[in-house]
């Protein structure tokens, strides 16, 4: 008997929920992080995805439905990264394929990339001297000092009067009467229109996919408070140096942004609460080597845990997506309620199973080189090993070591087939 989409939806959702709850599902669920791979699968390019997000969603639908994965995601190569809006802003924080200006373009028609603050002369990092300004009034800092740095066409924001003076018509004059304000509003209007056009297909897409029988893996998104500063403002090296030169300022700033990271996660996750509980948190600057365990416990982990606990308290499941080597952190990040979180572990996932297997659901999979230059046979064998060892007793969702992006199609198919056949409990 052919199962209805509704039945399939329930089956897939249960499979994932069981894995999260550390129970043994009927089969190992599979939901690889795609990051633009479906564009390749559909014969499209990154420019297609960033400049016509509907194409990215169609490509993703094609991949997920044809490969019969257990969950879908809203493409990271599409609606949330609208090339046209970036062009209107003349964004300096990233480079991406197809950008109008050559200086904003990646040389290869592949993934966009973030520019490290202060590097390549694209935009200045937040200087250490700015900590007090930021701490005193983060919103004003972001509006009048930060946005002008990361987007060329928002530079006139430097010259507008602070919004906290606009508490009456007496403050309106200096604000509204400023020609720079008009300039910047025009840019914002154009960018906003492009953003809303790009994001408009998301809701219908989510609806369509659920009706086809596929639940979303995650909907909301969160951030680590340390990474809020290290990824985007002070920069990786800036925060590293702050740990030595001004540890108290760094801690104060982390404390300041922790509620913002919670606010952000809840803001993005709440609208979908009935549909999906998982909140995706990609984490970067606490990886192995990026600091000592002592620094990790002093600067990185406590605020991250606070964000995760706030989400768990609201009934959400934080999905900590770590990259790089995380082996030495495993005992530290074990300090989280059982069955209430998902951790992506790149290296070493087998060891992670031993240490974290009774605490959190793990995701991970075949290595980057295996997926990109290996053979389907190699992928099949490694996938079996993952199922045997990491999938043992449940608590595992098959993913890949690093997002698929450029992976060979036949290798993704081999991984999928192996899970479907060999992954049955």
């Amino acid at each position: 008997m052919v199962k209805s989409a509704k039945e399939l939806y329930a089956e897939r959702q249960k499979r994932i929920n069981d894995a999260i709850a550390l129970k043994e599902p009927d089969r190992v669920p599979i939901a690889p992080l795609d990051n633009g791979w479906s564009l390749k699968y559909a014969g499209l390019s990154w420019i297609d995805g960033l400049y016509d997000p509907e194409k990215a969603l169609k490509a993703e639908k094609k991949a997920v439905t044809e490969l019969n994965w257990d969950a879908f995601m809203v493409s990271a190569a599409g609606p949330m990264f609208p090339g046209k809006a970036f062009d209107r802003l003349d964004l300096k924080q990233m480079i991406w394929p197809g950008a109008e200006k050559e200086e904003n373009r990646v040389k290869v028609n592949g993934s966009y990339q973030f520019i490290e603050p202060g590097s390549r002369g694209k935009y200045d990092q937040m200087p250490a001297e700015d900590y007090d300004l930021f701490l005193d009034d983060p919103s004003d800092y972001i509006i009048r000092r930060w946005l002008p740095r990361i987007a060329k066409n928002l530079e006139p924001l430097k010259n507008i009067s602070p919004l906290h003076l606009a508490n009456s018509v007496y403050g309106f004059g200096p604000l509204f009467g400023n020609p720079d304000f008009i300039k910047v509003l025009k840019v914002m209007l154009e960018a906003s229109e492009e953003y809303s056009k790009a994001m408009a297909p998301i809701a219908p897409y989510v609806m369509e996919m659920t009706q086809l029988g596929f639940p979303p893996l995650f909907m909301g998104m969160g951030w680590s408070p340390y990474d809020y500063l290290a990824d985007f403002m002070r920069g990786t090296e800036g925060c590293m140096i702050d740990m030595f030169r001004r540890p108290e300022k760094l801690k104060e700033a982390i404390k300041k942004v922790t509620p913002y990271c919670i606010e952000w996660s809840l803001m993005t996750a709440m609208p979908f609460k009935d549909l999906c509980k998982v909140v995706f948190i990609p984490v970067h600057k606490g990886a192995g080597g990026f600091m000592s365990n002592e620094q990790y416990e002093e600067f990185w982990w406590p605020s991250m845990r606070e964000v995760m606990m706030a989400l768990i308290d609201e009934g959400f499941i934080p999905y900590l997506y770590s990259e790089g080597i995380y082996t030495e952190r495993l005992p530290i990040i074990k300090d989280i309620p059982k069955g209430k979180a998902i951790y992506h572990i790149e290296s070493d996932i087998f060891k992670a199973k031993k240490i974290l297997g009774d605490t959190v659901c793990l995701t991970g999979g075949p290595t980057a080189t295996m997926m990109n230059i290996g053979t389907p046979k190699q992928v099949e064998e490694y996938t079996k090993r993952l199922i045997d060892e990491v999938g043992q007793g449940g608590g595992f969702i098959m993913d890949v070591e690093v997002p698929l992006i450029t992976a060979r199609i036949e290798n993704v198919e081999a991984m999928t087939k192996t899970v479907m056949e060999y992954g049955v409990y």
Partner: protein
Amino acid sequence: MTDDMVKSLSDLKEEEVLSIVKDRLDAGGDPMKVLDDCRTAMGIVGERYEKEEYFIPHLVYSGEILKEILEMVKPKLAEGEGLERSGKVIIGTVAGDIHDIGKNIVTFMLDANGFDVRDIGVDVPPEQFVKEIKEFEPEVVGLSGFLTISFDSMKETIEAINKAGLRDKVKIMIGGGTLDDSLVKYTGADAFRRFAGGAVALAKEWIGGK
């Protein structure tokens, strides 16, 4: 006094070491001796990194302190004076990729070990590698990458080096977070090393007692 400087720099005591250097230079001390001590101290920093007592933040911070010391020393040096270096290495992140943390660590470690390193940056197209190799004439070329797209860029870069007739003049090492040994054959490189220490040992092996 010498030992104090080496110790305070390798222990990352910024204020302490800067004041020692200032006192020494003010007292007419030999600036070359200061540079020598810097090298000894940075060697210790590198060793501690290898032993996982230090991590990337410690390397970055020691580099910051070193910069300040060099600023103080520079005006005291005679024209052309500086540390002797042996063995030339060109290093860069390949086309399509702008990740540079790994590359910077390897550069730092090679530099601390006395190599003459030319870091040619990120998102470097194959033809630029070729041009820089012709100009700088290194014994070793390091290709860095993090994104999976870098796998093919490395292959193309090595093909370009081949085509330019430079392949037998250089040894090529590759490295990066998502790489492993299987990429050596795929890209046509000579070797892969996962960590910076391995890259330094390999460069020493290749360049030998020069």
